[in-house]
């Protein structure tokens, strides 16, 4: 009887531990990247050396205003860099992922994987 109670207590402790890992991971999440559009911007730039404003707008199916606001937030955090040039008379804005941005993206991915692993285990 005592052995069964101890086993139940152990199971309960393991359950608590499992639920604790994802909770802690969520709290540690990089909120800047977690937002859907910003996550899209960073993901797209992770596989391209550079992308123009129009590339990102078409890829993420968003509006000029929305993209500008979210790109600016990533730029302010120095996760992406922005370069404005002229192509003939047309203004051209290009974005690149910075080293800090790539690190933050990798950390975010690791978080997501940790959550899944905790649930699987």
């Amino acid at each position, binding site marked *: 009887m005592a052995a069964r109670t101890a086993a139940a207590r152990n199971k309960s402790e393991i359950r608590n531990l499992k639920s604790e890992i994802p909770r802690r991971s969520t709290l540690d999440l990089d909120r800047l990247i*977690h937002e859907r559009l910003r*996550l899209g911007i960073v993901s*797209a730039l992770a*596989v*391209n050396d*550079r992308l123009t404003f129009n590339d990102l707008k078409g*890829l*993420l199916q968003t509006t000029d205003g929305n993209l500008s606001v979210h790109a600016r937030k990533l730029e302010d955090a120095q996760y992406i860099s922005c370069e404005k040039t002229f192509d003939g008379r*047309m203004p051209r804005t290009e974005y690149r992922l910075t080293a800090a941005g790539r690190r933050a993206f990798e950390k975010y991915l690791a978080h997501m994987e940790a959550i899944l692993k905790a649930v699987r285990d």
Partner: protein
Amino acid sequence: MGAPEPIHAHAIDNIRFIRDTMSRATQFTALPGWGGVLMGVTALVTAAVSGPPDDSLRWVLVWLADACVAAAIALGAMAMKARRAGTPLTSAAPAHRFALAYLPPLIAGIVLTPVFVLGGLMARLPGCWLLLYGAAAATGGAFSIRIVPILGLCFMALGVVAFAVPAAWGHWFMAAGFGGLHIGFGLVIARKYGG
């Protein structure tokens, strides 16, 4: 109020979104639909001019001239489409990946053409060209919209059949592939993928 979403479901959804975005961000989308249609039209004209393969150098040269015209149309139309989208080809990573996968089978075709001519297999060039052009579209298409590898497989199938039928039918297969497939798929790309 619905039940809160489990956190692992949210993580799976996020990872799926990241993977999907990364995959679409590496696609080469500057393929010219209208350019394809125009290439198809020049191929139909060339098939009418060349007639059946007759083991003459004239037949090969007529088709090589069309290949040069088609390449010029494709490059010009691609540059125009990419420029319209605000992404010059020279700076687009997807374009580089597409070119790297697309070119090797084409180079194989360029090498095999004189081999077929000198080996007395000139009349079998339609099968060789269709097969290798299809292979180029299928491999390059791995970095592009899904319709491109399908186009490649259609070309390859046509090439295989062209090897099996009498060589005198070669110009019909050239017309069906470089003409018909280019026009058909070109129209779909133009309507669905922005020109």
